């Protein structure tokens, strides 16, 4: 049996090194994505988002608000507009993500006790940019409101402390557990990296197995394995497992040792989870190739599964907000379980016991193709390739 395994591995290595596409999928493509995502989101949190100011009041008060807004980290006032129309046109041209409007007579009406309103318009078509500009504009407005309130009270004879306490009796203190600096890069890259690897594994596994049917080499493959389908499959996939594992070890070291993303568990835990994700993804790819032994269908479904993984794993939009049936379906995607293990352990530092379901789920994926091995064996011997 071991001799058969060695024979199949040697045969597979020959295939891998004579087809550039294998090294592309296992190494070049993931590395390219890692570098792209890491350098793209180098800032961690976007800063200096372009916004416009419409200061129709033009008084010391409105100028103070403008300066304060411009000093906010996420915002950069790139345009002073004469009226709202000009600013909304700039928004339609996508020159700015938001505009802040101080209406004419604000300072005067304030003195007259009329409570003038500060307005800001946000482009939520760009949700991240919209939310970040919202936060800075909201805080600036609250501060302006508080400053005016405090100034009135101190003018009436209150001390500064009394005034502050009166204007804001209840203060909210936030503690963002696991990602205290609210970095978007941390939030996205931790799942984007393994997601890309998992996607490529699905497709490459389905490809490499069904190619044997396409070129009618299935019989030779089985023969090399001593007619044992398990040996054949293991010998074919092991070299790929190894290559993908190297990539996974690289991204773990890259994320946690080089970029210093939060890691509240030993690095070996995340490497182990990544290796489990790799084998689970290979198993799912093998399952698809065995269930649909045709390159076209196996690879199309594998692609679909891999791409949908990104949305359905819940790292960008939480699954609690998805339709009920989708929430249940998330369990069918290995990336979802990896994401849960990552967020429970690396991000939040919970003990392993709380993630056992997700480990069990990933292990279940590994068993998934076993019942179909007979079918695959039959297909390798008898199926004809259809375009």
């Amino acid at each position, binding site marked *: 049996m071991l001799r058969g395994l060695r024979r199949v591995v040697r045969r597979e290595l020959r295939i891998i090194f004579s087809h550039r596409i294998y090294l592309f999928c296992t190494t070049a493509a993931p590395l390219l994505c890692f570098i792209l995502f890491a350098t*793209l989101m180098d800032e961690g949190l976007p800063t200096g988002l372009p916004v416009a100011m419409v200061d129709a009041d033009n008084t010391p008060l409105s100028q103070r608000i403008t300066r304060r807004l411009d000093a906010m980290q996420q915002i950069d006032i790139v345009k002073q507009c004469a009226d709202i129309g000009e600013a909304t046109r700039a928004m339609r041209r996508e020159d700015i993500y938001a505009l802040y409007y101080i209406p004419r007579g604000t300072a005067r009406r304030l003195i007259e006790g009329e409570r003038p309103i500060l307005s800001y318009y946000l482009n939520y078509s760009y949700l991240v940019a919209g939310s970040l500009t919202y936060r800075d504009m909201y805080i600036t407005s609250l501060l302006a409101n508080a400053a005016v309130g405090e100034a009135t009270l101190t003018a009436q004879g209150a001390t500064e402390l009394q005034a502050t306490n009166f204007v804001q009796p209840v203060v909210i203190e936030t503690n963002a557990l696991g990602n205290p600096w609210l970095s978007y890069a941390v939030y996205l890259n931790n799942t984007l990296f393994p997601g890309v690897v998992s996607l490529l594994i699905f497709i490459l596994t389905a490809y490499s197995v069904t190619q044997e049917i396409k070129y009618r080499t299935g019989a030779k493959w089985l023969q090399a394995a001593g007619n044992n389908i398990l040996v054949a499959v293991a010998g074919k996939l092991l070299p790929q497992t190894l290559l993908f594992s190297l990539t996974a070890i690289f991204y773990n070291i890259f994320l946690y040792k080089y970029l210093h993303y939060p890691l509240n568990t030993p690095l070996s835990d995340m490497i182990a989870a990544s290796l489990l994700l790799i084998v689970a993804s290979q198993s799912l790819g093998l399952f698809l190739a065995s269930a649909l032994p045709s390159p076209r269908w196996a690879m199309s479904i594998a692609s679909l599964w891999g791409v949908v993984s990104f949305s359905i794993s819940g790292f960008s939009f939480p699954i609690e907000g998805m339709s009920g049936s989708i929430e249940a379906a998330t369990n069918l995607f290995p990336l979802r379980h990896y994401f849960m293990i990552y967020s429970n352990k690396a*991000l939040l530092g919970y003990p392993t016991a709380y993630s056992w379901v997700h480990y069990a789920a990933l292990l279940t994926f590994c068993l998934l193709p076993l019942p179909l091995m007979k079918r695959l064996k039959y297909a390798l011997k008898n199926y004809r390739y259809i375009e």
Partner: protein
Amino acid sequence: MRKIILAYLHELKCCTSDIGVMVFLLLVPLGYPLLYSYIYSHQVVREIPVAVVDHSQSNMSHAFTRNTDATPDVAVAYSCIDIPSARQLMEKDKVKGIIYIPQNFDSTIKNGEQAHVSIFCSMASFFYYKAILVACTEVSLSLNSHIQATQLARATTEEIKITTSPLPNEAIGLSNPTAGFANFIIPAILILVLQQVQLLGIGMRMGTEYEKNGGQYPSLGINRLLGRGAAYLTILLPVATYALCVVPHIFGLPQLADGTTLALFALPYLLACIFLAMTLGCIVHSRESAMLLFVFTSVPLLFLSGISWPGSSIPLFWKVFSYIFPSTPAINGFIAINNMGATLADVSFEYCVLWVQTAIYFAASIIIRK
């Protein structure tokens, strides 16, 4: 002209009789947008469960808890005696955050000092953080005005408002007023899918040809290239109409586009994609390798477009790189046209880029076949 028409008819026949190609050119763009719209159909996350640790147990702290529970974004699912027990609930994933009200909450307020409420959020998703923070801030603001009112017992409501909140503010969401997730991501996905299915479908077609032609591309002149391009356009026009007009309509997504503007904008996008696919097809050496080469690019391309990570924060190198692909100008232009009712003049930059791309990739697809 005759050559063009013959090539056109031939290619149309080849495509429609090839199920693999039709899966990408027809089935995927028909089904995929539906799947995504369904996944995100709720748009927002409501009633995120939190645990409250109330050490104050006063009327004031009860009011805070009650009002937080009443917000649409957050639900107070548990009340715990201390932080460790609340943390346990968080570890079991029963709650996404903890609100801690200290013992002196009530007394500090009554003494005219500042009271502090602490919130702890799981950062597994930014949505948890944002929802809990916004809910608690809103509740604290309304509680503040209530407290101020009791301190200014004799004033009228309007007088209290003038003292406590002299300069109110309002946030107005343009183009996606509810800040919905589907409104934000689906328009970009609709555009990106159109490009990706062409890379895959046309790539598969060319890979098949390469294989059948003994590891070589058949040489094509300008006429046959044009004929082929027209054939792909014929298949894609109804598909694009469906993706850009019907899908947003079915799922009630923003749809402010002027029909003519949208049609004029979509045309160079489809053409640029077709010729890009015919250019990149030269690296597809077998029927199946198109999938290995192009599927994974969807995720980086979505990020490069600036829809998620803001375009203004994308480093220059990647910014330039992103304009190699028609999806970047098309996503930004389509969002301006569809979500904000922009005219062709508003998106003139994106529009011009698409035509330039069309010209470049048309030339490139001729050159690589020489």
